[in-house]
């Protein structure tokens, strides 16, 4: 055996042992220790910021949901989330964007169709529909809509529930979150939280019979 070969073989033996030690430290001890510390000190957040209603978990405040029937038709008594490309829509275990390109005719067509649907559902003018209402998010799980889109939905939601529009509008305005620290990101409305507050205001309207 040449000395170079022996030296190389020795390096590989060192490498194997180093990988084993580092796997134990970084791949087992570190993530498990962080999980333990996270669960002890910040259990709610480390577990996914889940929301409980009447003792059952109804979702996560960080993960968006669909407010449609099984066929994907919007339920008029709820505020609607953004379009979603995650699975069949807001499948939290299949996060995905549409990945449609900025000149893809399929995307233009989808956007036009969404605009037409919102015009019909909310009676809104096409020019007043904000971009987030007609575009799918990066995760497909965006829990937020813009305040503009939330306010645009007020008349239709109020009508479906037989509530005064001003009452629903006040609720929406109270749910608007400003930019983080006043200048980071965009103002948002969390759709699940908004709909939960709406349900509290008008529990009878949740099944949409009015």
């Amino acid at each position: 055996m040449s000395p170079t070969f022996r030296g190389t073989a020795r390096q590989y033996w060192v490498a194997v042992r180093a990988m084993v030690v580092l796997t134990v430290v970084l791949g087992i001890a570190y993530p498990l220790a962080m999980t333990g510390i996270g669960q002890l000190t910040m259990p709610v957040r480390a577990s996914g910021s889940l929301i409980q209603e009447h003792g059952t978990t109804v979702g996560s405040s960080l993960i968006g949901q669909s407010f449609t029937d099984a066929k994907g038709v919007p339920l008029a008594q709820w505020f609607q989330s953004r379009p979603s490309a995650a699975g069949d829509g807001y499948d939290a275990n299949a996060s995905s964007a549409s990945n449609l390109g900025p000149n893809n005719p399929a995307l233009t067509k989808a956007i036009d169709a969404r605009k037409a649907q919102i015009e019909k559902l909310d009676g809104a003018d096409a020019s007043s529909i904000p971009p987030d209402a007609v575009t799918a998010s990066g995760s497909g799980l965006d829990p937020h809509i813009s305040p503009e889109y939330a306010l645009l939905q007020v008349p239709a939601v109020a009508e479906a529930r037989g509530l005064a529009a001003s009452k629903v509008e006040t609720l929406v305005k109270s749910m608007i979150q400003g930019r983080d620290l006043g200048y980071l990101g965009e103002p948002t409305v969390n759709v699940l939280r908004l709909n939960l507050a709406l349900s509290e205001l008008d529990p009878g309207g949740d099944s949409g019979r009015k």
Partner: protein
Amino acid sequence: MEFWLFLAQLATVALLLAICHRPLGDYLAITFTSRRDLRVERGIYRIIGVDSKSEQSWQVYLRSVLAFSIVGVLIVYLLQRLQAWLPYSLGLPAVPQGLSFNTAISFVTNTNWQSYSPEATVGYTVQMAALTVQNFVSAAVGLAVAIALVRGFAAHRSGTIGNFWVDLMRGTLRVLLPLSVIFTLVLIAGGVIENLNAVHAVHTIAGATQNIPGGPVASQEAIKLIGNNGGGFFNANSAHPFENPTAWTNLVEVFLMLLVPFSLPRAFGRIVGDRRQGYAILAAMAVIFVVSLSLMTWAESAGGGAATQAAGGAMEGKEQRFGILGTTLFGTTSTLTSTGAVNAAHDSLTPLGGMMAMLNMMTGEVAPGGIGAGLYGILVMAVVAVFLAGLMVGRTPEYLRKHIGAREVKLASLYFLTTPTLILAGTALSFGVPGVVQSVEKTTIFNPGQHGFSEILYAFTSAGNNNGSAFGGISANTPWMNAALGCVMFLARFVPIVFVIALAGSLAAQEKSPVTTGTLPTHRPMFVGLLVGTILIITALTYFPVLALGPLAEGLH
């Protein structure tokens, strides 16, 4: 209004880095020059059979880097293939051969390209014991190689450039691990999950069920960004609310991607004994970063593309909580470092915004670049710049009192030719080889027209610069793409490392030449301009034709 928000956001990042880069840079310099080992390190050196006091020649250092990385590839490959038998695998089967090959190389080369959707492919044991480990050690390898090159500049007639195993352990245990522990907790505080729960169903108020995932996410997220890795725990990467829940965690994640790369010039300056040299490098990085960020932000705000205009703004593939400004800051940072994490769908960026993401990678990722790789990349370009300046004005080519001779210039040239060759060859072969071209056009490409070409160009650019981001619509889990991208990632990582370590050896062996009136000062604004110019000219000459076929054609349509 938008302009002021843009400035305030940029100023926050700049301020955080201005505060942190000095102490961290000094700490890095001390870590890699200290003679003392920690007790835990001494224990590890005994177990792995390393004498921490013995220095390595560049050939031995290089062999150690390669041995460690090849063993890493084998282990990550095996763990994926054995997934069905591992605990906490969520019932997922073994990862297929071609995909395991691609993923193993991807994580060992610090690329973290993902031809798969993690939710449907990898369980928690592979995530932790295979992928999280490589998130640390692939970053530590980059750091070690950069430090070896810096030692080459600092040394005087030395036959050695340090000990790889010591650099690896110190980078991991003294730098990456403590930072990751701290920022895992910060991210959990922001809402990033950290648990071992299986996917569980909840019943929504609209009467449907939703499957909420779990996982040890925050501990991987921290090192994913600090180590400029970028592989997502989830398919949507940092767009996923469980990886990046708020606008402020978005800013923290941007800061983490930039933290070590922007601190390394300070460490460099300290080790070579002239801090002004570090500041010159830092200035060149910062100039390119700010210009690039402004251009991408302009492109996305202007909203090019027929579909974008139909929607009234470039929000397809973007999260409402980040908006356009939070997205372009993250996207620019991710593609100018070697991170490749995304908080939006790059495939849906406007044509010129998407081109900026590509162009960022094409600069060779030196502003500030990936962990370690950014510093050694820009130092190689500094060698080239000094040489070009020497040709132009007739000065002696010298950098940091080291003579830049034929051998050094050859190594530097080979370095910057490797990646473009691999990217352009990979792209050309994808459209040129019969059999392959059908698979690429029918299966891999997602969007029609020029944008489809851009998807393939983006993929090879990302693999060739060890970035890992993608125009994500493509189906890369095909035999050709897994094999071609796997080979490109491996060669684009380790061939340049061969040249860098050889350069380190060559510089270390030289004696330091005295400073004369003929020496070009390399700490002044003029040199910063020369360095930036060299980087931009080489990038433009190499990639302009291929950009004209894809994003430029689409953007100017």
